[in-house]
């Protein structure tokens, strides 16, 4: 509480733009009208009026189902799938006389399949329910009455309740802030969960209620709030409060949103306005777009194709059936008299043959349904869930420091991970750490700072020259550097000329002093003094700003205290060598925004001098310098360019002295602008500041390094070798983006850069004119011209690598409908693409353009709220579960902790999952076609009457029991090559990108294989058993013997085919494959042992008729081998003479040639082309260039 008292500052005063007091404007007249009908009686829980309100309670449900709706809703979801619907229809039809089999046997597999999916849905929903329970049962202090607050669960909160939320707690509902621990009733709110922004937002209550500071004060507190109805807009709120018979206007400034967090404030009191599903955040939560993978879409198409085949088979069969049925009755003459054609029911009546044929068509549809793999979808789902478990449990994708493993949030996209063609990556927080380090500065035209940036290191690597800094070879010190990471986060400044107070001996020590003072004063950070250790930490709006304040502190200008009107820092007095306290009076803060690109503070120093301290981007700052302030301009500009080359963020620091009149004039204008209520208020403020932020005197420039995340260059190198294109979409300025590009090896020397920008003189001229139409027209023309020129360059030379760099402004035009395809062609032709200064929306649009324009699979990776659109738009969104809030993770499909894990996620898991799923689906079609073929061929021998040779239960259990488990095992465990080889031969990944394992040729190949196997099985079995006796006792084989024999062969062949296709036999594979066969025999035994009324034709069939007959076993052996020989031949030839890429790697592994460089290189061939990016490609390109370079050097000049 002590610190709270101390901190009772009117921080609201230092903010100019954000913190305007409210005024009644047009919106408030609508209150009470439609859309603005909500009335909240605060603190009147017992009152009848309040009780009569029927606003939603505060229970939040994120589950898809409730116990009541689970059954109907999930069933509905299930039967929306064509295949499932088909099986539902056949299930219903199987109760009629049309059915060729018994209803129970037809329904049971459907129940199993649907049941399994529903159980999965149920478990998932139950987990959500658990989360809900946790959230809804969090406790908050609620006013019970009589000034007493009690703990209550969130879910029991009612509209109108007064709650007390303490520091670092989440707000349980949308609250109206009444007062806070600060005197002026402000509070800081972290809205990371809402918009991903890490900076704190300031909220403030009405002045009228700000005086309530004690629990007991609420005994008599009463207020009535009238406001808008629940809506999804996070940044608007319109309402009025009636308090002590006064009307006050309410604005978003008073609204604390659910899911945001109270920070830096000890407590607040608030009245509940919106609860539960009425809250803005919940209203805002949209269903994530449901994504389906390309493989699944293709699977659907195959299913449709199979349906077509099924209908065709049924149709042909029906026609034939109709014809032969009609022939059965020839006038009075009955041909097949034993069928009783004269007294037949409609299904077989020769007199009504067409009708019989139509009915038969339905029967045939039921019978040939075995072509459609009923368990395919559920198997895919099970497999994918298991695959995600593997991803989640991968120890190599666990980030120790953040204690975060990979987390696949959706399970339905695993195989897409193996097919990524383009990665669209955010930069900040994804490629870089989003931790800024103050590393260099240029003061008074002298460059300071000897730290080595990643980029410099990368460049040094590239040129191969040793990098000597401070007498050490930095390259050799690489490893040490990793360990000796800065003792101070955000600070990596090393220069003996400046540190430890030595700056005083520098020539321009006065400038240096001003420079660091500016860093210590000109910011909006809030110090947090740890009273025990005396250490100061800072809460800053951005990491850059924190880096500045920290740098100032480390260099002896320790900012430690901020009041509403003063900024205090400790300074080492160069003369007395003592730490002295300096307190500046803070007059105004002119905040940073993206339009102004600068921020200033106006302060009065201890001598009473008025100073305007300003820092900003070079593009705006150099224009604002005074004539006499340009002393160091040239050298500073030079340094700034150098810094940008090294991938650093730069800011220009300048100051100006003000005289009293000038300030007075400004302040009046500024205050007036601040208090103005008109729409152009911001413009007025801008104007006011514009006039004072001029005639500045340049001090110098800062350079802050945006640290690359660990392993990023290596990861990009691997991904590039895998043939994946990497686009960087960043909000940063072009220079920074390009430099990060260099650091990541996305760009390299010798790469031709096609830069599309609107910074050309004519555009700037047009902009000065200000006619919007003209500007857009000219800009568009210019962009178009540049794109076409780029394309021309591209076509002129195909072997050179190109890089496309485009800025946000140009991008806006490039994404216009008429030129976007040209733009895409250009971009696809380039080895690297960097879009800088792009807005979140543009990121999403670019993603969509790539996805739809190329038709390839895209992956977007990002960490911030500004990447959400991109993540949702891409085929797969990968969120970095880093520091920038959870928004990106929440909208991603897979969350990983570090960019570098992408390598393993794609090259290993992606490749495996893709391979597994596609192989599994192919196998599913195979096994069903084998079975369907035998059913169909038998029909041809039964005059298409719809009689299967198999017992009903053989039919229905085929898919579910005897053949599905090995397929699932294939889908979960198969590995063509081990993880090590996946990473060693990244080009293997192209199998997925090119979709070689699931192209039509392969699918139809498997179908053909199924057909061949089916035909072989059927004819060999029937010919071998017919018509002779098949046993020593002379008895002949009836339908049940033939049926069981064919079925045995089908089960054997399907499982052995699996054994041939699998390249990775663990114990599990053995158990499932051989288990499937054993299961069939066990089933035959068990089923045959049941009473005849259940087992019907299968009664004792194995024990009595099959097992004792040697010919049964001989036939099985023969048929199984004969049916597999064609595939075996094909595979043997293919594996040896036309191996696919994974085949080659298998050979390498098998022959132990992994260390034979020649061999390995041959297999790796083309994994690096001239257009490949990444450092390996870069070093190769460099070697080639060096050769040419040497030739040039040797030539006389």
């Amino acid at each position, binding site marked *: 509480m002590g610190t709270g008292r101390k901190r009772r500052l009117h921080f609201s005063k230092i903010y100019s733009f954000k913190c305007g007091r409210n005024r009644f404007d047009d919106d408030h007249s609508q209150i009470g009208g439609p859309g603005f009908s909500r009335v909240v009686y605060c603190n009147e829980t017992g009152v009848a009026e309040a009780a009569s309100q029927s606003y939603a309670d505060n229970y939040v449900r994120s589950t898809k189902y409730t116990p009541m709706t689970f059954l109907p809703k999930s069933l509905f979801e299930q039967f929306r799938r064509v295949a499932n619907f088909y099986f539902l229809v056949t299930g219903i039809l199987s109760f009629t006389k049309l059915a060729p089999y018994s209803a129970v046997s037809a329904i049971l597999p459907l129940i199993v399949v649907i049941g399994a999916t529903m159980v999965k849905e149920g478990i998932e929903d139950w987990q959500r329910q658990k989360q809900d329970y946790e959230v809804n049962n969090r406790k908050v202090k609620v006013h019970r009455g009589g000034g007493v607050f009690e703990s209550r669960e969130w879910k029991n909160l009612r509209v109108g309740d007064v709650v007390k939320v303490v520091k670092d707690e989440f707000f349980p509902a949308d609250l109206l802030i009444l007062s806070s621990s600060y005197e002026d009733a402000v509070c800081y709110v972290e809205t990371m969960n809402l918009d991903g922004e890490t900076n704190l937002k300031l909220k403030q209550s009405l002045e009228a209620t700000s005086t309530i500071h004690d629990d007991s004060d609420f005994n008599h507190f009463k207020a009535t709030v009238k406001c808008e109805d629940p809506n999804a807009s996070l940044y608007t709120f319109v309402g009025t409060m009636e308090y002590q018979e006064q009307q006050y206007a309410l604005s978003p400034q008073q609204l604390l949103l659910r899911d945001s967090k109270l920070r830096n404030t000890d407590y607040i009191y608030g009245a509940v306005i919106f609860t539960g599903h009425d809250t803005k955040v919940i209203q805002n939560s949209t269903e994530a777009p449901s994504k389906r993978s390309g493989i699944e879409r293709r699977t659907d198409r195959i299913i449709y194709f199979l349906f077509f085949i099924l209908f065709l088979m049924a149709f042909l069969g029906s026609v034939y059936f109709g014809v032969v049925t009609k022939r059965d009755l020839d006038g009075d003459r*009955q041909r097949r008299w034993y069928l009783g054609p004269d007294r037949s029911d409609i299904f077989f009546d020769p007199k009504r043959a067409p009708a019989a044929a139509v009915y038969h068509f339905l029967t045939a549809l039921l019978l040939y349904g075995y072509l459609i793999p009923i368990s395919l979808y559920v198997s895919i789902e099970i497999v994918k869930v298991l695959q995600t478990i593997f991803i989640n449990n991968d120890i190599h994708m666990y980030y120790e420091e953040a204690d975060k493993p990979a987390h696949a949030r959706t399970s339905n996209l695993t195989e897409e991970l193996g097919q990524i063609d383009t990665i669209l990556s955010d930069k900040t927080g994804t490629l870089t750490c989003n931790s800024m380090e103050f590393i260099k500065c240029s003061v008074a035209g002298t460059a300071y700072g000897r730290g080595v940036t990643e980029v410099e290191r990368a460049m040094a690597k590239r040129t191969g020259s040793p990098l000597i800094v401070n007498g050490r070879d930095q390259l050799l010190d690489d490893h040490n550097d990793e360990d000796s990471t800065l003792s101070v986060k955000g600070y990596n400044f090393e220069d003996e000329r400046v540190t430890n107070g030595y700056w005083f001996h520098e020539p321009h020590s006065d400038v240096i002093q001003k420079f660091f003072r500016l860093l210590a004063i000109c910011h909006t950070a809030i110090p947090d003094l740890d009273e025990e250790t005396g250490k100061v930490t800072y809460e800053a709006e951005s990491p850059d700003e924190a880096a500045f304040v920290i740098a100032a502190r480390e260099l002896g200008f320790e900012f430690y205290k901020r009041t509403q009107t003063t900024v205090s820092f400790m300074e080492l007095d160069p003369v007395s060598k003592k730490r002295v306290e300096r307190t500046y009076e803070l007059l105004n803060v002119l905040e940073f925004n993206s339009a102004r690109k600068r921020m200033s503070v106006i302060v009065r120093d201890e001598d009473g001098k008025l100073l305007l301290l300003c820092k900003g981007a070079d593009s705006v700052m150099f224009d604002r310098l005074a004539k006499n302030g340009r002393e160091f301009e040239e050298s500073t500009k030079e340094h700034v360019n150098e810094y940008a080359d090294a991938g650093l963020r730069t800011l220009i620091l300048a100051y100006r002295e003000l005289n009293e009149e000038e300030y007075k004039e400004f302040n009046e204008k500024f205050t007036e602008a601040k208090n103005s209520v008109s729409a152009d208020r911001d413009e007025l403020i801008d104007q006011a500041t514009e006039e004072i932020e001029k005639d500045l005197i340049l001090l110098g420039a800062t350079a802050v390094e945006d640290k690359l995340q660990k392993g990023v260059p290596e990861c990009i190198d691997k991904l590039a070798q895998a043939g994946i294109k990497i686009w960087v979409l960043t909000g940063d300025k072009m220079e920074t983006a390009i430099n990060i590009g260099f650091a990541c090896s996305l760009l390299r020397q010798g790469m031709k850069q096609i830069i599309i920008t609107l910074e050309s003189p004519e555009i700037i001229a047009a902009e000065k004119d200000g006619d919007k139409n003209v500007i857009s027209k000219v800009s568009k023309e210019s962009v178009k011209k540049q794109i076409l020129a780029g394309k021309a360059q591209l076509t002129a030379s195909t072997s050179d690598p190109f890089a496309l760099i485009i800025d946000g402004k140009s991008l806006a035009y490039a994404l216009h409908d008429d030129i976007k395809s040209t733009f895409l062609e250009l971009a696809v032709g380039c080895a690297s693409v960097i879009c800088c200064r792009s807005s979140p929306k543009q990121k999403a649009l670019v993603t969509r353009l790539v996805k739809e324009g190329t038709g390839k699979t895209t992956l977007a990776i990002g960490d911030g709220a500004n990447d959400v659109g991109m993540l949702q738009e891409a085929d797969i969104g990968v969120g970095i579960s880093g520091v920038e809030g959870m928004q990106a993770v929440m909208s991603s499909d897979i969350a990983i902790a570090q960019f570098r894990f992408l390598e393993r996620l794609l090259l290993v898991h992606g490749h495996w999952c893709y391979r597994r799923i596609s192989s599994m689906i192919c196998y599913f079609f195979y096994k069903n076609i084998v079975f369907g073929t035998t059913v169909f061929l038998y029909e041809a021998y039964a005059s298409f009457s719809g009689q299967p040779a198999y017992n009903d239960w053989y039919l229905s259990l085929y898919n579910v029991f005897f053949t599905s488990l090995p397929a699932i095992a294939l889908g979960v465990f198969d590995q063509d090559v081990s993880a090590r080889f996946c990473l060693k031969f990244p080009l293997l990944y192209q199998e997925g990108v090119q979709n070689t394992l699931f192209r039509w040729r392969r699918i139809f190949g498997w179908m053909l294989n199924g057909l061949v196997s089916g035909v072989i099985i059927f004819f060999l079995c029937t010919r071998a058993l017919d018509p002779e006796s*098949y046993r020593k006792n002379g*008895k*002949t084989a*009836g339908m049940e013997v033939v049926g069981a024999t064919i079925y045995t062969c089908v089960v054997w062949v399907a499982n052995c085919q699996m054994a041939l296709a699998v390249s990775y036999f663990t114990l599990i594979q053995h158990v499932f494959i051989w288990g499937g066969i054993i299961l069939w025999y066990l089933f035959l035994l068990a089923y045959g042992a049941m009473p005849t009324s259940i087992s019907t034709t299968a009664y*004792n069939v194995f024990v009595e008729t099959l097992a004792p007959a040697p010919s049964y076993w001989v036939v099985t052996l023969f048929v199984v081998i004969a049916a597999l020989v064609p595939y075996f031949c094909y595979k*043997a030839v293919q594996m040896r003479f036309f191996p696919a890429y994974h085949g080659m790697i298998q050979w390498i592994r098998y022959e132990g040639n992994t260390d034979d460089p020649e061999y390995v290189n041959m297999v790796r061939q083309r994994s690096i082309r001239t257009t490949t990016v990444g450092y390996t490609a870069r070093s190769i390109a460099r070697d080639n260039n060096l050769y040419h370079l040497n030739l040039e050097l040797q030539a006389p000049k």
Partner: protein
Amino acid sequence: MDASTRTRSNSNKPKYSRFTQQELPAWKPILTPKWVITSFVIIAILFTPTGLLCLWASEHVVEIIDRYDDDCLPDSYSTNPDLYIQSRSTNKTCVRTLKVPRKMTAPIFIYYQLDNFYQNHRRYVKSRSDKQLRDPDEADETEDCKPQDHLSGNDDEPIVPCGLVAWSLFNDTYKFFKGNKAIDIDKKNIAWESDKKYKFGSNVYPKNFQKGGLIGGGELDDTKPLSEQEDLIVWMKTAALPSFRKLYGKINTNLEANETITVVIQNNYNTYEFGGEKKVALSTANWIGGKNDFLGISFLATGGVCFFVAVSFILLYVLKPRPLGDPTHLSWNRNQAAQ
């Protein structure tokens, strides 16, 4: 929230196990020349003797088949076989002589063989009542048997056994003579035990059988329970394909080579209507069953093919000893080349 989850489980670090890290010990076979050639050679080695064994066994089976449906039709009816077969007054007796080619050792099985007879037609297969056959109390269970369910129009008189299968019971009879001496035909145990025991009741007697307007095939002895009517049981075990044999009986004496056997056939069964064929067959059986060259020949053929394939592979491997696999044919390289 973070803190609470962290305290619950100290770390989110996945536990290491060979299973979760997908590093289970596994056998990773690839089709090396050794494997391929070995497999084909093994198949060839396995199949050739098996095929020879099957052929040998098949060769030892002696089989006599005689088609008699056309020959037993008197010339005067040749244009109108329906009249002949449907009439009760025509003489259906037909005498055929068979020559025994080689010695046939007992038991010699007598089969009748029907061709183009769709016992596997769905209407036919379903037209039976297993309940009725099993249990005398279920005689009324004739739902599936239409039109052979009740005596015409009388619901109280169910037919036992009902349905088209039973109704169309094969009713040609054979008598065998060696010279003038009749050969005993053993008609016992021609049906499967489980059928006799569990599917056809020992206390179910035929009732109203073949008493309807239209008589299909054979009649049954009303005094014998169904479980003893083995001809019916054999007949009702529906055949899988439209051409089938069924066991008629057994001869328990040897037949010597070149003996002449006379068969006296009562040609009752109507195959003329649907253009079927009737044959009588005498056959011995051994472990492979009846005469079946197909299996042996297919074994030999497959074995031969495998041997051939094995040889071709050996040649291929010798000619191209270390074909690394040319990466240029990979699809992505093709695309690149095409550009």
